[in-house]
């Protein structure tokens, strides 16, 4: 009972936050338009966080997701400036993400370097590469094809289901698709269950014949792919690419996964729980801005809330 309550604690927190803002901002917060905005605002973070969940299931980390996102955006933009078609640029950017992930995977799974160190190193390398390829410049304006930047502005109209004038952004839909894929993979495939086995007890998994190396390597590749998707979404949203633009995603994504982990029975990460974490961060940002809370105070508040959530859950756990 107490343990159920503890597990639900973070979800209850999210509900409380929503109720609070609904009361404080009766006119504007709980409107279809605002919620759709929020969903679009958090879509990039959500994709990175879902991708991060995949490696964190193995109790690994990927600090390089932000750099990979930036690098993917830059690669696409550089190809745009070379007048390549959108599909080619997108494929190339995704390939770069996978490659970056594979490099991380080799370092961690084959060479046996701690994920924290390995991805700290590749964070620097990928970020250097993004600067180098772009010559340190922000690429924007005419260089970015309309077809690419309009993705972030378009959506599926919800007129038919009774929300006149509101449309569900493609960005939101993409994030939901990524969520669905990650959720099915982690919870309902052999592959995902083995990742949990590695996270729970890598030695036991190895002794039982699980191909730990190969699984870890591929999981890092998946995370790289996710980071690249998020990088492209970001580039599309700001219609430009800049070698530092993904940098802020990493710590937030990790924070979101950790918030979600408070809901796991054994403190394990889960895709849907990560979604709750992302929602908490995104809704706090949206609501506090609307309430005109000073940005510095907002920053402190978000930090405090993350800690409070995790503290509540860990106190329950030890009792």
């Amino acid at each position, binding site marked *: 009972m107490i343990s159920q309550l503890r597990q639900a604690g973070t979800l209850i927190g999210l509900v409380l936050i929503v109720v609070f803002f609904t009361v404080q901002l009766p006119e504007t917060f709980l409107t279809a338009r605002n919620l759709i905005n929020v969903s679009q605002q958090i879509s990039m973070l959500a994709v990175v966080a879902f991708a991060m969940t995949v490696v964190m299931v193995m109790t690994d980390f990927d600090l390089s997701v932000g750099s990979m996102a930036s690098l993917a955006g830059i690669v696409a933009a550089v190809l745009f400036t070379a007048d390549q078609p959108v599909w080619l640029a997108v494929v190339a950017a995704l390939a770069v993400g996978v490659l970056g992930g594979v490099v991380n995977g080799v370092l961690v799974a084959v060479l046996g370097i701690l994920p924290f160190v390995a991805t700290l190193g590749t964070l620097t390398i990928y970020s250097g590469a993004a600067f180098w390829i772009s010559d340190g410049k922000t690429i924007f304006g005419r260089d970015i094809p309309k077809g690419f930047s309009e993705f972030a*502005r378009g959506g599926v109209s919800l007129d038919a289901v009774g929300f006149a004038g509101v449309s569900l952004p493609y960005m939101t839909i993409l994030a939901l698709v990524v969520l669905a894929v990650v959720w099915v993979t982690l919870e309902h495939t052999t592959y995902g269950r083995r990742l949990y086995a590695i996270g729970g007890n890598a030695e036991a998994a190895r002794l039982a014949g699980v191909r730990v190396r190969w699984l870890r390597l591929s999981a890092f590749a998946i995370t790289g792919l996710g980071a690249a998707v998020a990088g492209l979404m970001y580039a599309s949203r700001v219609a*430009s690419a800049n070698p530092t633009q993904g940098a802020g995603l990493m710590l937030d994504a990790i924070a979101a996964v950790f918030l979600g982990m408070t809901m796991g029975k054994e403190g394990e990460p889960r895709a849907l729980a990560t979604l709750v974490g992302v929602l908490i961060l995104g809704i706090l940002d949206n609501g506090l801005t609307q309430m005109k809370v000073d940005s510095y105070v907002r920053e402190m508040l978000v930090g405090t809330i993350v800690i409070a959530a995790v503290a509540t859950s860990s106190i329950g756990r030890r009792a």
Partner: protein
Amino acid sequence: ETVAVITPFLAQPGTQAYVQAFQEDAATRGWEVNVIDTAGDMAAVISRIEDAVTQKVDAIVVNVDPAQVQAGLQTAADAGIPVIGMDAGADPLIVTNITSNGYAMAAETSVYVANRIEGKGKVVMFVFDAFPPVQIRGVVADAIFANFPDIEVLDRITPDVQDGGIADSRAKMEAVLAANPEPGSIAAVWAAWDQPALGALQAIEAAGRTGEGIVIVGMDANPQARDAIAQGGNFEASMAQDFVGIGKAAAEATARAMAKEEIKSKVTYVPTVLVTKANAAP
């Protein structure tokens, strides 16, 4: 009326100065101002514009290149909320952009350097191409130095700006000084903003090479730079943007936009001044 000021760069002293001037001016007009800093995150600027639109503010002031926040500007335009650029860029969706002429500023400091070293010698440049307004300064300086056959650009350094830029620029300059130990081998330091100029100055002082006549110029004339220039050392000149002027002009433009007045020019330049020892006293 309610006005949202959204910027990713509030940590920059220049941004702080015009945001503050804007706030002061707004206070006299009785507006409620909500200043939002996204700490460098561009996509968050779009998000916060959307939030401001949801809140139904009366005007939005932005401080980023409009090309990067088109999605947000469109949302504001759809809601009929005017967006004013404060040191941003020109764009059809922006009522008007109040700024300094970055090209002219860079030309003025680089020509100052060229003249002071009589068109010959080695110059160290500090640049930052990732940020468009600073990048154009570097481009102009490159062109001007290239036009002097006896000026050689010794190094074009991009310092780490995470810490504000002084400390890393100093370390980089110390390395350059170490690599060029002969007195007079470095004629000048051209910095695209003031922090690297200050770092270079500290490095030169620490190396005991203040007597070689190395000319340092910066840009933005922030108070710390003014202090240094006033002391009459190697740091000789910087360009003062009229930040207060920008803030006030932006407030004026905002008032006119909210009153639905038509503003013809998409860009409004606020004059800049070259600061030297003669006029450095703050």
